[in-house]
């Protein structure tokens, strides 16, 4: 059995590549985020290397798909705090990629009592956030898992955020104050427990450790000076009649700007080069915040926003998890057309869902579905009676999972070219998704707000018609 190692994309890629270069691995195709997921090491020709989103790595190691992996201690803890018996062990700090997880607030003194209402915490680390809240004996709290931009939520949409930052000063730059430091982390080498106990990993591990700096301080020794004062974010109290609109960050921004322009709505500093998440919009009584499209349905459901522009794919995923959610589609914006598809490897002798069901029926091992759309994937498996299955949550680069680490992907595609390039094939189309305006089924008790909402929807509707 060859040794298998999972390497990170994203924030740790550059320094991990440098470490491996120092260790003389002779890696090809591991220098950029261009979508190469299967690099080769000339020093260890038998070593099987795959590149994943960092958050996926502890899960892959715990599942036993890989023997070794490199990821931040934060993601390892996020897994272990919820699943303490996972088969993953930390081997060694790698002395780079340092940072801390802070519970932070936008107010000078967050009100922990909240008059009996839940204290809201937004975080990409929902398990760690919950564990911390329990540990601190917070009486009543809600943890909102978000895909990113947790710092955008306080103070209006959450009392606090648990988020990663290089230092407390870095937090201050986005007008957040640390309430507590929850964890110091750095990149670390992790291993599957069974592989660590039974497999010969010594040469790989020795090679990695030989390239580590000798004098670097460990994370535990890191001293972080908390700034004596950071000004609270100045946010005007939101009027009862104001319409709260969420706009997407990332690659959907340009199309959104074009739509708004067609609707005759001017918006400033969006997309923002300096990372401003509260752009000004030239519409009376409308307040805008920029967040991840994945997070919008939940935020609309819990009343943080009245309207949001997201994809139907994310709304469908949200409704698959929370069927009684008040979030609903208001207007099809007919932008960013994609299909949600079920994908298998070319070599799998399956042409459609019925064939898939027959194929699975003959297997002993549970069937593995990997997807960013965890709830859609789960529903797909249930609706199609896929028997004994497991859903593997992923955070991008899902194509890398087939055929070794998953049997089926639920993925979005525009043209199907990326899927074909990775030697994969589509066996089912679940639905077509476009950008849409979503809102809440909850009744609005302010006549002025109702009027503003209707006016905004009408403007966007006209813009869609003009497209």
């Amino acid at each position, binding site marked *: 059995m060859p040794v298998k190692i999972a390497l990170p994309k994203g924030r740790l890629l550059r320094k991990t590549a440098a470490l491996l270069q120092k260790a003389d691995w002779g890696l090809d195709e591991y220098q950029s985020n261009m979508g190469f997921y299967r690099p080769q090491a000339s020093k260890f020709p038998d070593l099987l290397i795959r590149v994943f989103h960092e958050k996926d790595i502890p899960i892959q190691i715990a599942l036993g798909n890989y023997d070794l992996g490199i990821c931040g201690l934060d993601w390892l803890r996020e897994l272990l705090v919820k699943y303490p018996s996972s088969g993953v062990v930390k081997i060694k700090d790698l002395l780079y990629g340092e940072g801390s997880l802070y519970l932070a607030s936008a107010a000078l003194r967050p009100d922990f009592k909240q008059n009996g209402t*839940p204290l809201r915490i937004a975080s990409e680390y929902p398990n760690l956030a919950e564990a911390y809240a*329990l540990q601190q004996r917070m009486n*009543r709290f809600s943890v909102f898992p978000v895909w990113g931009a947790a710092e955008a939520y306080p103070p209006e949409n959450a009392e606090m955020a648990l988020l990663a930052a290089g230092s407390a000063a870095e937090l201050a730059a986005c007008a957040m104050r640390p309430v507590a430091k929850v964890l110091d982390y750095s990149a670390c080498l992790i291993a599957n427990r069974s592989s660590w106990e039974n497999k010969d990993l010594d040469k790989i591990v020795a090679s990695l450790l030989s390239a580590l700096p000798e004098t670097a301080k460990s994370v535990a020794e890191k001293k972080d000076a908390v700034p004596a004062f950071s000004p609270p974010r100045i946010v005007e109290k939101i009027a009862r009649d104001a319409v709260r609109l969420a706009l997407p960050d990332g690659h959907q921004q340009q199309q959104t700007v074009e739509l708004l322009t067609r609707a005759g709505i001017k918006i400033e500093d969006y997309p923002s080069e300096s990372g401003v998440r509260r752009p000004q919009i030239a519409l009376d009584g409308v307040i805008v915040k920029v967040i991840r499209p994945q997070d919008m349905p939940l935020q609309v459901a819990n009343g943080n926003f009245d309207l949001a522009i997201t994809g139907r794919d994310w709304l469908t995923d949200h409704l698959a998890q*929370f069927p*009684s959610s008040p979030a609903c589609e208001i207007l099809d914006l007919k932008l960013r057309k994609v299909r949600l598809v079920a994908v298998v490897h070319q070599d799998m002798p399956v042409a459609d869902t019925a064939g898939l069901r027959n194929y699975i029926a003959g297997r002993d091992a549970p069937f593995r579905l990997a997807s960013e759309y965890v709830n859609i994937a789960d529903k797909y498996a249930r609706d199609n009676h896929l028997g004994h299955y497991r859903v593997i949550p992923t955070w991008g680069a899902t194509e890398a999972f087939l055929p070794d680490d998953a049997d089926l992907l639920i993925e979005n595609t525009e043209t199907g070219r990326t899927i074909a390039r990775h030697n994969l094939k589509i066996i089912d189309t679940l639905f077509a998704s476009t950008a849409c305006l979503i809102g809440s089924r909850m009744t609005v008790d302010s006549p002025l707000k109702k009027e503003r909402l209707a006016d905004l929807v009408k403007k966007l509707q006209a813009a869609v018609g003009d497209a």
Partner: protein
Amino acid sequence: MKIQRCKGMRDMSPAEMTVFHLVEEICRDCFLKWGYQEVRTPTIEYLHLFTSAGTLTPGMLGKVYSFLDWDGWSGERVVLRPDGTIPVARLYTEKMQEQGLARLFYAANMFTFEENGEKTRERWQCGAELIGAGSAVADAELLALSSEILQKLGLKGVELRLSHAGLIKALLEKIGLSPEEQHKLFDSILDGDADALARVSRESPELGGTLLSLLKLKGKSPGFLRNQLALLRQTAPEICAPLEDFLKTVAVLDELGIKYQINIASGTGFEYYTGIIFQYFTGREKIGGGGRYDALIPSMGGGNAPASGFALYLDRLMTLVKPASFILTSPLKVLVKALSPDAVKEAFNAAAGLRKAGFIAELDLDGRPADWTLEVKSGGALTLVNKAESVKSKIENINAAVALLEAPGAG
């Protein structure tokens, strides 16, 4: 592929269910006779019910099964109940507060995550809660009731161990720890670290030999407790109130002749305990326990309602009781056999007649032999067959069959 049950969950076979019901029925019978009323609370509760200060220890909270349910878009998590008392206290606060004193009991399953899933993650327990009474007599009622149940179950060598949460807290305060440290140490004592208190006490010049000997105290020594009280009145008056409270309950137990062991340093239980804590052991196995929790209902907004309760662990009791020592009577079983396809309706009717008369009547589906068989022919002709006696009796109707089955010696 063989489908397995979830890790840490248990099945109960028909034989185990018989024992389960035997134990449950004895508990239920005693509870009802002492004036307790049965309640049932949901398997799923909001997480925040268990997170409030003064409910579960962090050690226990770290082991709850919590998740967002289909209504969880508000971000609030729910849990599979890890404890029986807190939901009953919630029910009382929600619906029964006005009645004042309430004697309630339940039989329910609790869920806690256990690392390897080798031990059980689902536990069954029978519990009683006495809400609205704060006296030593109320404590004694629960101790007498629980002792009676264990006695009726025929358990031998049961040891009752007593401690007192208020006394432990007063000692922790006396040691001079910060409120946070006191809280932490109290939790670790409740999570089962029996030596924690003694370890810290040894380092405390405040305590000296007097209190250390109180901590070391094991055994049935109410006299010693009284002597300690006399001594402490001078040196540590703040410890006297909980000690007096403890003594009051112990005095009632003495009058009732209930045997116990005092072991102050071992208070395993729940953070919500404020007064007496008791545990039942057979050998090294804990089979139940309880205590006084006067602050729980007020913390839920339920007004000033002192309360105490206990639970007996059904899973453990099931392995200890000997069903053979109980007379388990069940009705006589008769296999009803339709001898031809057109006799099926009559067979169903005959079986119904037997059931009405109090017998177990099974329809014959696979031809297996039975001690008693009632053969039904088309037109309703009946033959009762006694396999043991090799006797076949032709009978006219179901009443005649009942008469034969009820005859002396039939069962």
